[in-house]
């Protein structure tokens, strides 16, 4: 949230999209978003008497916030290129309804229904992107209209009634878990062991059997992150850039490994890796690659950083804006599908107000309201931060009225730090 998180993606060292992650996390660790996340975890862990980090709640962070994460990735690109999309909640609600009607009313196969819904999301992106990019109507207005338009379209589609339930295979998108392939193992920390208590902080370890597949996926992820960041460091050295010392390098990687393995351990202690989390991880990887390693990503950041300079360098700014809106539409479709699958029905109120969570997560994750700045890793942490806030406050039974006010203050303070670091740079 401070100056370092403002470093645009392009300034992260080279050497592979995933390796950039390590660099981005390094920047963030210095800055504070990650620190803020850890403090929030610690806070909820203490106030909830150790309930926060129980397997079920760690799983719930992903189950309940998967759609925010998915849509925030699209919102990141929209915000980076210098626009905003206020309609994602309505669009997601509408597309959830589309999927529902296709499956329930028209009895389509879930796979076909999902595919058609994603296409419909792309078409909505084309519609909104066309107004923004080619007709030059401000995105704020276009998507405000979209918000109303698709809210109405949802009601029209559903006739004011919830549509459901859905086939089991469709519901698995939101409630399924990666199946155990190797047979579970016993918790090495023992069964029913007393929690490790450090002052008021109780970290209960030990429990039922663990899902081995989930642990293996976690270990694989660790290996990939370490390999890529090591390769990146070597390359930087080769070109004479300053790199952190070997000790710092390993300390950082150790922390990342600890984080990933702890989450895997917790997930493995419940039902394993949720399908929606796996989906989110794949998308995170893809968008990191897109933003850090592709010409397309580079051009999107260039347009957001200075549209005039990008245009005069031969970048087709309009097409870039158009594409980011199509991308947003497709991800909103995915968000809508996840929401519908989670509630096992499409309701007229689905997606209501979700655009606020998605936009807030993106800004808290360090994207700049002025465009050109924002990282996938930051956005993911921002989304997790909001997810954690939601669940933590739920566990603490904080009334919903206070929850809104607290989230509002978090958003304000986060963006204040963003603006302040901007002013310092200028």
């Amino acid at each position, binding site marked *: 949230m401070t100056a370092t998180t403002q470093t*645009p993606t*392009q*300034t992260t*060292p*080279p*050497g*592979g999209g995933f390796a950039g992650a390590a660099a981005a996390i390094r920047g963030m660790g210095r800055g504070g978003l990650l620190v803020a996340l850890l403090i929030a975890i610690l806070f909820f862990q203490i106030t909830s008497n150790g309930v926060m980090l129980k397997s079920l709640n760690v799983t719930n962070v992903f189950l309940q916030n998967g759609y925010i994460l998915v849509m925030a990735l699209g919102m990141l690109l929209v915000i980076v290129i210098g626009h905003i999309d206020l309609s994602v909640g309505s669009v997601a609600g509408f597309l959830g309804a589309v999927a529902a009607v296709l499956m329930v009313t028209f009895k389509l196969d879930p796979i076909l229904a999902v595919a058609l819904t994603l296409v419909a999301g792309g078409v909505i992106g084309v519609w909104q992107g066309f107004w923004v990019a080619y007709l030059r109507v401000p995105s704020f207005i276009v998507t405000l209209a979209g918000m109303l338009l698709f809210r109405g379209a949802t009601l029209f589609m559903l006739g004011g009634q919830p549509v459901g339930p859905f086939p089991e295979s469709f519901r698995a998108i939101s409630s399924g878990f990666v199946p155990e392939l190797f047979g579970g193992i016993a918790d090495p920390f023992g069964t029913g062991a007393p929690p490790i208590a450090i002052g008021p902080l109780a970290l209960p370890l030990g429990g039922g059997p663990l899902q081995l597949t989930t642990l293996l996926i976690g270990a694989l992820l660790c290996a990939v992150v370490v390999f890529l960041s090591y390769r990146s460091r070597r*390359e930087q050295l*080769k*070109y*004479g*850039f*300053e790199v952190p010392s070997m000790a710092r390098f390993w300390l950082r990687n150790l922390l990342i490994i600890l984080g990933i393995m702890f989450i895997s351990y917790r997930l493995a202690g419940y039902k394993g890796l949720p399908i929606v989390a796996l989906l989110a991880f794949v998308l995170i990887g893809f968008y990191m690659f897109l933003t850090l*390693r*592709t*010409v*397309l990503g*580079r*051009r999107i*950041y*260039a347009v957001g*950083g*200075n549209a*005039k*300079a*990008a*245009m*005069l*360098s*031969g*970048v*087709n700014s309009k097409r870039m804006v158009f594409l980011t809106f199509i991308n947003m539409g497709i991800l909103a479709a995915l968000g809508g599908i996840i929401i519908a699958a989670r509630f096992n029905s499409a309701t007229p109120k689905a997606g209501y107000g979700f655009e606020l969570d998605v936009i807030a997560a993106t800004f808290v994750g360090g994207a700049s309201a002025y465009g*050109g*700045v924002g990282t996938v890793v930051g956005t993911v942490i921002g989304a997790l931060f909001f997810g954690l806030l939601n669940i933590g406050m739920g566990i603490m039974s904080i009334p919903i009225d206070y929850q809104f006010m607290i989230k509002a203050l978090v958003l304000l303070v986060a963006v204040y730090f963003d603006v302040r670091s901007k002013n310092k*740079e*200028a």
Partner: protein
Amino acid sequence: MSDVLLEIRGITKEFPGVKALKDVSFSVRPGEIHALVGENGAGKSTLMKVVSGVYPYGTYEGEFYFNEEECRFHNIRESEHKGIVIIHQELALVPQLSITENIFLANEQATRGVIDWGLSYRKAAELLKKVGLDESPDTLISHLGVGKQQLVEIAKALSKDVTLLILDEPTSSLNEKDSQALLALLRDFRSQGIACVLISHKLKEVEEIADTITVLRDGAVIESLDASGGNVSEDRIIRGMVGRDLTHRFPPREAEIGEVLLEIKDWKVRHPVYDDQMVINDVSINVRAGEVVGIAGLMGAGRTEFAMSVFGRSYGRYVSGQVLKRGREIDVSTIPKAVHNGLAYATEDRKTYGLILINDVKTNITLANLDGVSTSGVLIPPKEIRVANEYRDALSIKTPNVNQLAVNLSGGNQQKVVLSKWLFADPDVLILDEPTRGIDVGAKFEIYTIINRLAAEGKGIIMISSELPEVLGISDRIYVMAAGRIAAEMPAAEASQESIMKAIMRLARAGAEEVVL
């Protein structure tokens, strides 16, 4: 009343890397018209911004006195309170508000916050009468032409009990008739005892109207001429403006000029908004391989507009004209097509149009040719760094490494990054718009050396510059532009600052009726 109204003593003003004013001293008498002349960048506007409090006390050295009182203005309000009012080249009127509302903006005729509209209209009507503007005070500014807007600005100045009126290029956007009306008004003011500092490029006007002419060059006062008898000729003023030492400021140039590389024929462009304004009128130029062609002219002559309209029609509305490369017509209708066909345009405003300041050096260098550092849409980071390092070394860009953000570089190094970007795009013809604006002498020399090297490689260089010595020192051939037309073409060897200035003035007079922009 004393015989000195404004006395400026030893004012020095520095911007990062540039000394805009060097120990400037002169004085303005009450009720005189004092013309301030000099080339672009000579420091005229900067000086007047000091006097009017735009640059507050403490940001410059030296002092100035108004009515024998030392002035230490912290903002424009304070200077206006004393009776010093500046009217900038870009008018500061709100188009959506009426004449009355604009005249009394921030000076509302109000009691306890409630505006007395009756009083406002009455006063506005009186002021309009004084400046000879026959319009209702209710009229919206957006309904007025530039000439009339200028008069509203002056009425606004009068509403503040002005004793010293500073006009920065008031007639640059006016046609001959409006200009004459404005000058007549200034004469009126003179008889009423209002002094006026007039900054102008139109030397004919200066010669006609000024009582005293002060010539600035490179931020220093060259001379103050008594012109009350009308005895100072245009030529005399020009000599003061341009005479300077030309040795050792430019690297030696041995041109090997080939055949015609690029030819632009009968280029015509309309203003992007005002349909009746032809910004570029029948311009035809060519550049040969290995040749540096300079385009000289004053601000607003249409040079940037011309270059940008050729480069992917990024300015104005294309009317007609052809672009030929080695005799074959090429499509330059979009920027990607122009780049693809071997054109590059390095902008005059590198911060707004040239660089992505929040991105690092390597990202900026590769932006115009991302295909050169990627395979099937995927960037190759090591290759990108290698390319960036090559240009950093070749152009000696001073930066710790290519991951440095562009915003942290000095002006000269930023300019080199912009040049690197276009060199990496490997164009045949490079249009450089004010390539040395705002950078120090040493960096200028380096940029000139780079230009020479590119020409030696067989590229065609078109260089737009407002600095006449630079145009003369670097070019092989010179086009002079004024009022959207080519006023003259001359080999650099036969050109002089006087001949260029004369060509500009000749066309400015002839075409005054249809001056644009």
